[in-house]
Structure formats: structure tokens, C-alpha cells
């Protein structure tokens, strides 16, 4: 076991998967010599050469469209879109083709590609570098949408995403790239896509989140325990689509109370879907209305005010206490 940042863990996943399978090809802007602007692909070009790690022209639709062609051929392209804020320039390739070619071709072709891209706020970046738009992809049939929350699960989930026969949108919480280190085993480790994880057990309240919001959520859960004597159960979704409702429904059947936390805007956000599933599957067990702690329905402000926009432990605590109050 080595202590690694998420950047290092993702790099390890790519390196090991490329060693194992010569159909894995990396492509994107600055992924070669520069090793990616966040260094996730650092030095992979030295080991695998220009024929496995492609520095492409600056064109997101081209990168994704080329990946689709490679994937249809039978390769496993992993493309990097430098910031999720630029992925709207390739949105049509994902929506029109990556998500549909299996269906359109009646199963003759599949698109086993991964689109990796950093998302989310908290790093004092420029406009278009901080938003959280996972629902665009989660709403698109034919895609899978994965968001890890730490070095170890990022490594395991990326390997699973590369091996998945369907296109996977892999959002990397850039605020966590170097925020902390975790033990990451050298031996290969995978995690199932479409499966949430209970990261803290409890009986009083269910807290559901993912990605960069896991840290303030866990902080709030500890605080609830220390100050209020409340045992909150915390669930890390890990996959946004297909959403593992069973894990959080089972939890709410037990607790009767839930808070959903995400940094994406509130309306039509992942929380809306999570709450709907709870209405369908746990309504009679709910003691109080479900709380949502989210970004607001505005463009995330430029960085001097982004902290005000992003959910934090304090806001999560207030919502949790409200959910516990009756």
C-alpha cells in the first residue's frame, strides 16, 4: 500500500490498465508531453509512446468523436476533456452517438469509451472551470455517469469504467485531486459501477452525497455525533447513473429521515431524482420531509464568492438538524 493523492491513483489505474490491454488508448489536449493540466496522465507517454497517448488538436468534439470511432472499432479509448466546462462542445457527440450506437446498430456495435473530465468548484479557477453538470449525462439514456470521492475508489472505479462495455462519463472532483492521500493497494482493485457505498453506519438519519461533497457531509456527520449524539448513516453514491437506489432506500426504511447533498444546482439536480425514488419506495417510512443541500439555481459565481455557493458542513448540519427536529 502506498499513500496516494487522487491524481496519482488515477495515473496508476491508467498505467496498469494500459500495461494489461493494448486496446486502451489515451487521447486529449495536453495529455502527452504535459501529462495533462492536472498531471493525471503524467509520464504515460514515456512508457507507452505517442501511439498510445495522443496529444490531439484543441477540439472537444473531435476528441470525443474520434474516441467513438476507435471504440466502435473495438479499442477502449479513454479521452480527457480538460475541464467539464468545455465538454458542452462535445455534448452532441455523446448524446447523438456514444449513447446511441449500441441501440441504433441493434447491438452490432458498442462504444466502450470513457470520457474523463474534472468537475466542480473550490479551486479558485476561471469561469467555466467550476460547475457541476452531472445531470446532463445522467439524464441521457445509454450512458453511465460515475463520480469518485477519494483516491482509492477513483482508481478502482476508473478501471471498472475502462472495462465497461458502455460509454462512461467519469467526473473527477478537481477539488479532491490533491486534497488528501489514501492508502491505495498496488494490486489491482475494481469497484462495481452502479453500486453505492455506506461509508458511515447509523440509525437516526440518512445522508446521501457523492464526489467532492462527501467531505463536508462526513464532517457534518461527525459533528452531529459529537454534539447531538446523533448516528447518521452516510451514503456515497459513487455512480450517479444508473443510480443505486436500493442502498439509500434500505437506509431510509431504517432511519425515516434523509438529507441529500450535491453542489449541482438544486432544480432538476440529482437530488430531485433521489427524492423521487424515496417517494416511490420509502414514502410510508418517512418521518419528515427530505432536505436538500445544494448549489443554487444560478451560474456558480466567480471564485471570490464560490465558497458562499458551495454547500459546506455548516449548511449540511442545519439541514440535518431540521430533518431531525420532529
Amino acid at each position, binding site marked *: 500500500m502506498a499513500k496516494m493523492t487522487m491524481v496519482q491513483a488515477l495515473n496508476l489505474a491508467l498505467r496498469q490498465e494500459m500495461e494489461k490491454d493494448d486496446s486502451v*488508448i489515451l487521447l486529449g489536449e495536453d495529455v502527452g508531453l504535459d501529462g495533462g493540466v492536472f498531471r493525471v496522465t503524467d509520464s504515460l507517454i514515456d512508457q507507452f509512446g505517442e*501511439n498510445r497517448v*495522443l496529444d*490531439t*488538436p484543441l*477540439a472537444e*468534439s*473531435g476528441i470525443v*468523436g*474520434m*474516441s*467513438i*470511432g*476507435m*471504440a*466502435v*472499432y*473495438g*479499442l477502449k*479509448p479513454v479521452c480527457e476533456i480538460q475541464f467539464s466546462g468545455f465538454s458542452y462542445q462535445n455534448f*452532441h*457527440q455523446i448524446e*447523438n*452517438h456514444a449513447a446511441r*450506437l*449500441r*441501440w*441504433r*446498430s*441493434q*447491438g*452490432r*456495435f*458498442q462504444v466502450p469509451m470513457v470520457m474523463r473530465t474534472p468537475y466542480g468548484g473550490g479551486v479558485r479557477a476561471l469561469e467555466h472551470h467550476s460547475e457541476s453538470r452531472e445531470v446532463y449525462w445522467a439524464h441521457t*439514456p*445509454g450512458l*453511465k455517469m460515475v463520480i469518485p470521492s477519494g483516491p482509492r475508489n477513483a482508481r478502482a472505479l476508473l478501471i471498472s469504467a475502462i472495462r*465497461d*462495455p*458502455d460509454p462512461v462519463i467519469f467526473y473527477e472532483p478537481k477539488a479532491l485531486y490533491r486534497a488528501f492521500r489514501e492508502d491505495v493497494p498496488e494490486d489491482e482493485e475494481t469497484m462495481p459501477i*452502479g453500486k453505492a457505498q455506506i461509508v458511515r453506519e447509523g440509525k437516526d438519519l440518512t445522508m446521501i452525497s457523492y464526489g467532492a461533497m462527501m467531505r463536508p457531509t462526513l464532517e457534518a456527520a461527525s459533528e452531529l455525533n459529537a454534539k447531538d449524539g446523533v448516528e447518521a448513516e452516510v451514503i456515497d453514491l459513487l455512480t450517479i447513473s*444508473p*443510480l443505486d*437506489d*436500493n442502498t439509500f432506500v434500505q437506509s431510509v426504511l431504517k432511519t425515516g429521515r434523509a438529507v441529500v447533498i450535491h453542489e449541482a444546482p438544486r432544480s432538476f439536480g440529482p437530488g430531485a431524482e433521489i427524492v423521487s425514488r424515496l417517494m416511490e419506495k420509502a414514502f410510508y417510512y418517512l418521518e419528515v420531509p427530505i432536505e436538500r443541500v445544494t448549489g443554487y439555481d444560478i451560474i456558480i459565481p466567480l471564485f471570490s464568492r464560490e465558497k458562499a455557493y458551495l454547500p459546506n458542513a455548516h449548511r449540511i448540519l442545519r439541514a440535518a438538524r431540521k430533518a431531525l427536529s420532529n
Partner: protein
Amino acid sequence: MFGASQVLLILRRLVGLKMPRKEIEINDKIEYLSVLDENGNLDKQLDPEIPDEILLKLYRIMILGRKFDERLLNLQRQGRIGTFPPISGQEAAHLGSVALLRPSDWFVPAFRETAAEIWRGRSLESVILYNNGFNEGVNIPQNGNDIPISVPVGSQIIHAVGLGWAAKYRQTDNVAMVFFGDGATSEGDFHEGLNFAGVFQVPVIFVCQNNHWAISIPRSKQTRSKTLAQKASAYGMPGIQVDGNDILAVYAAAEEAVDRARSGGGPTLIECVTYRLTMHTTADDPKRYRTDEEVEQWKQRDPVPRFQKYLVDKGLLSEEKIAGIESAVLEEIQAGVDKAEEQMKTLGNPMHMFEHAYAEMHPYLQEQKEEFARQLAEMNEEGTHG
């Protein structure tokens, strides 16, 4: 040793470039290839000398494509199929090019290449099924390298680059040939596709069927460029403009491009100058935006009689043979229509819509499918399911 442009450059360096320049000449020189004239007379020096059996197969599929198009229009007008994009007038452009592909090459169509799809082995009944709103109409064989048609204009262009790159990476000599229209050249994906192809030197042939109209927008409003082929030079690849209604010219240009791609020489853009003789799709009325006179002029350049005359002159066709081919083709079309109508009787089950969404159906989708199945059963019982 030096070309004219290099001489000019050297002169300019010697003399110095006088700014501001008064008259600027835009470099839009492009080679234009035509082998058969409008009446089907051959320029003997340019005859690509296509083997007889290929010529006859091309002719048969050209007639099949044309007659099938007419039959589809007829079926559509009777309400027996849905909206479809007719190909009449463009058969030479897409047949003359696709004929150079091997089965293992990648065929990446837009949506107005039906004769090329038939050349690649697509059945007539599958076209009818698809145009009747059944996914089962896309029935690519498991080893077939034919991508299904792509509706969003130009978006398929870049896929050919990925396919070509992969073919090269796997050290095959397969190529990818992608089709699109004049309107597609305005799309960003045209630029990104050709730019990537140039950078990665992939074995891809870009075939533009310039039919002069993107629904109601004429070619002149699509781009200020004199030709579409000249755009190739900006991407560092060869471009050629051919008479797209002259199947020999299309074949000759495609042969050169495919050979170059196969032997590692990189991509080519071929602009086939052709004309859509009927409507964009059956939902369109071209009389709103173009004149009958223009259509009449292009009917004079129809690719079918020109090719037919060449084959007659060559002694490969006679009036008798022409009539024989036509009646055989009409029979084939009738058989296709009959087969499609027979198959559609068994395709009513809407449960099929849940197929092929994912490699493995996820639990919530499984729940939705079961819910739908229950509702369907109940509605069938009540007689409320139309």
C-alpha cells in the same frame, strides 16, 4: 525544381510585400475531373478501365437504387412508409466511390447513400422496415463494418477518423470512407474531422456529395469558397472536385484516394458535384426554393443515361439487356416490399423498445420494463392499447 507559388514567394521576399495590398487573389485552384460528358461520350484518355463485371454490377445497382427510390416515394405517398430522404440523381456519386471498398473497410454513411448501402449488402426490406419506424431495419451482419446512417448533419465525419486511426493502429490496410453533403461542410465537425485526419494521417476518404441544396439553402449561401474540394488544402490533404454525375470520374478519383490511403498516404477529400433531383425528404417541397428550370437542366446531366450510353458504346449493354435488367430489378423491389410487409406483421411488440439500451439492463430500467409490460397486458385486456 520550384513551383510557381514558390517562385512568387521568393520574388516577394526579394521585392518585399507592399502593404496594404490592393487586389488580393484567393488561392482556389482545384483539379476537376470529368470522364464522360453530359451525353455520355467518353474521354478515352481518362477511362479508368473498370473491369466489365464491376461495370455491370454498378449499372444494376444504379438502376436498382433509382427504381427503389421511386418505389419508396410511391409507398410514402400512399402512407405505407414514413419520411425518407430520396437519392435520385446522386447514385453515381455514392456508388462510384463505395465500389472501391473491400468488405473489411469501414463504410460511414450520412443518410442519402441508399444505393451505396445496397452495394454493401443491405437488403431492400431492411430499408423499408427502417423507414417504417422499426429499429430492426438496421440489420448489420455481426462482422459487417457498416455504420448505421447518421442523421445529425456532419457529426459522423469524425467517427471515420477514429475508425481509420484504429485500423492503422492494428496494422491493417483497411480504410474508412465517410459520406456527407455540401451543408455538412459548414458544421464544426467537418473542420474537426478533416483537421484531425490531416494531423494523424489516417486512411480516410471524405466523400462530399455536393447536391447543391441543404434543404432550401443553396450551395452559394453555404460557403464563400469557390469549391468545397479546395477546403482540403487548408488541412494539408489532397482535394479533388469531380463530376459527381459521371460514375467513371467518381470511380477514378476514389480509386486514387483509396489506394493512397491503403498504402499509408493519408486522407483525401473528394467533392462530387451532383444534384438532388427530388426533395430533401418527403416532408419537403422544393418548389418553395428552387425553379423547375434548374431541375430540368440537371435532368439533362442525369447519371443514369450517361453511364448507360457508355456501357452500350462499350458493347456491354444492348436494348434487350437494359430491359432485362430493369424488369429483374423491379421484381427484386417487389419481393423486397412483400418481404418487408410480411416481416412487419410480426414486429408489433413494443417491448422491443427496451432492447440494446445497455450491454446489461440496470435494475431501475428492468423495473420500468416490467411496469410497462404489466400496463400493456392490462391495456390489451381492456382493449385500450391502440
